[in-house]
């Protein structure tokens, strides 16, 4: 009896207090409808106040990267808040540099929506979506590189900037028990928005490349997300140096196609580095562009051409060829895509030709 009485009374008191807290929460945590203005009027969301900015945005299908799920431990969910965020919280301090604090960068998981907010979200972030795409084409480009065309479901579209990449999520296969996520640049043009084309080079022992090369067949479905990345064309120059090695050709092809389709008046030189003739691909595409366009120059460069290749073009390392074709880089932009070794070497060469280092954009494939 006494035990029962104890339990009942404690439970009773706790229940009453819990109800009081719930009522208080309903009343006090009710901030009404708040407006989140994104990118100076680009988009405007009406959300119920009281939750974090991160979850309010996620509820509206804007996914800010976050690994910890809103506990302020990963520091990934940074968003620039121009107005309405309130003072910086001690929980955010460790993740923000002095410059970021000055710019109003906040952890969106810690900012509570209590009123109207003005935020800045990089365009690429609210473009990121998940697609279950169907493989409609697989083309052998070279002995170890394949081109995949992944078409989205009816009605789905993608908006990306030429040069950006997608992430493929593999399913477990054979000995690989866990799914893996790997990034691949889009090689198709942004105008082709109902599908993406990816170029995947087989990496011996690679989890995702093996999966794509050996297990994925035409008609299969692949889970992809994107677009990601800040390797894309900046429009404030008319002269571009484009360089790629191996599968690094993918974003460059997308970039060139984009420029051609839009009819932009840009002078371009594209230096493509490969080992021998059997590693060259999209040859016809680029040679045709070269012939038809005065302003586009295609320079394939083989580091070790085989005797059978009967190669008459450039030979040697891309860095040597680069020095030969680019004398002065003043006012020019460079877009480099390939292995880290190649990119570092090219950046060193470009800097000696008056290239401003900020105007050298690159995407290191590793």
């Amino acid at each position, binding site marked *: 009896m006494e035990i029962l*009485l*104890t339990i009942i*009374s*404690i439970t009773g*008191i*706790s229940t009453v*207090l*819990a109800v*009081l*807290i719930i009522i*208080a*929460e309903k009343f*006090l*945590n009710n*901030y009404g409808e708040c407006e989140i203005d994104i990118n100076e009027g680009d988009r405007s969301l009406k959300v119920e106040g009281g939750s974090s900015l991160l979850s309010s945005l996620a509820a509206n299908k804007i996914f800010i990267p976050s690994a910890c799920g809103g506990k302020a431990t990963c520091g990934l969910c940074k968003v620039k808040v121009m107005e309405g965020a*309130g*003072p910086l*919280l*001690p929980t955010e301090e460790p993740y923000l540099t002095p410059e970021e604090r000055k710019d109003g960068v906040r952890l969106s998981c810690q900012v*509570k929506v*209590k009123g109207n907010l003005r935020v800045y979200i990089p365009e690429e972030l609210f473009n990121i979506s998940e697609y279950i795409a169907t493989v409609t084409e697989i083309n052998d480009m070279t002995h170890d590189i394949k081109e995949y065309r992944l078409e989205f479901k009816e009605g789905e579209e993608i908006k990306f900037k030429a040069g950006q990449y997608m992430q493929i999520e593999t399913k477990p296969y054979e000995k690989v028990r866990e799914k893996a996520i790997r990034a691949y640049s889009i090689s198709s043009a942004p105008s082709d928005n109902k599908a993406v084309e990816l170029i995947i080079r087989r990496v011996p022992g690679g989890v995702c490349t093996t999966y794509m090369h050996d297990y994925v067949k035409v008609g299969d479905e692949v889970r992809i997300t994107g677009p990601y990345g800040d390797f894309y064309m900046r429009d404030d120059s008319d002269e571009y140096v484009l360089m790629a090695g191996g599968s690094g050709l993918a974003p460059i092809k997308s970039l060139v196609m984009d420029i051609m389709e839009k009819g932009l008046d840009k002078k371009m030189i594209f230096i493509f580095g490969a080992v021998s003739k059997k590693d060259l691909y999209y040859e016809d595409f680029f040679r045709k562009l070269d012939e038809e366009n005065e302003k586009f120059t295609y320079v394939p460069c083989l580091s070790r051409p085989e005797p059978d290749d009967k190669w008459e073009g450039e030979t040697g390392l891309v860095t040597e060829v680069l020095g030969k074709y680019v004398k002065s880089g003043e006012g020019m932009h460079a877009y480099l895509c390939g292995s880290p070794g190649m990119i570092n070497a090219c950046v060193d060469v470009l800097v000696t030709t008056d290239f401003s280092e900020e105007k050298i954009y690159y995407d290191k494939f590793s």
Partner: protein
Amino acid sequence: MSAPQINPFIIFFASIITSNMVLSNFLGMCSFISVSNEFKTASGLGKAVTLVMVFTTVINFVIYKFVVVPLGIEYLRYVVFIIVIAASVQIIELAMDRFLPDLYIKLGIFLPLITVNCAILGISLFMVIRNYNFWQTLLFGLGSGLGWWLAISALAAIREKTGKSKIPKGLEGPGLTFIIIGLMALAFMGFSGIFVIQ
């Protein structure tokens, strides 16, 4: 036990000055020392503590007299008091987040820590031990809260001054703070000829 017939107002003034919770009973010391760097924040915490004290002593009094005693579960009073205090702090935190966001952020972790501020549980326990009636309890809670607020505000004001003064290196920080608190306690004790409770 019969209720001592002390005038509630004597309890009120005594608990502000001579029986000050922090300066004569040394309860609620942790936030008293750590949040007393800046007058504004200290005063804010003082208000929050006062609010929680009045709120919880009254609720605890009602629950104790009308639930705990009739049911004969006095042995559960610590649990009951703690739950009530925790719930009150929770509600006050929500309210502060809504209406005083700046203060809410400044107080940071010390606001939820009011839950375990011993001064607050102390009031509820003293009220039971001393067998106070409702009015005595109400004014005891209010007086103790105001006393705590007065003490932390005074300490913060002094510390703001000493923060800008040249003080011997060895005394910087907690050293000087404890000396100040000691002197303040002496000063408050100076009133003990006028009125004192227990």
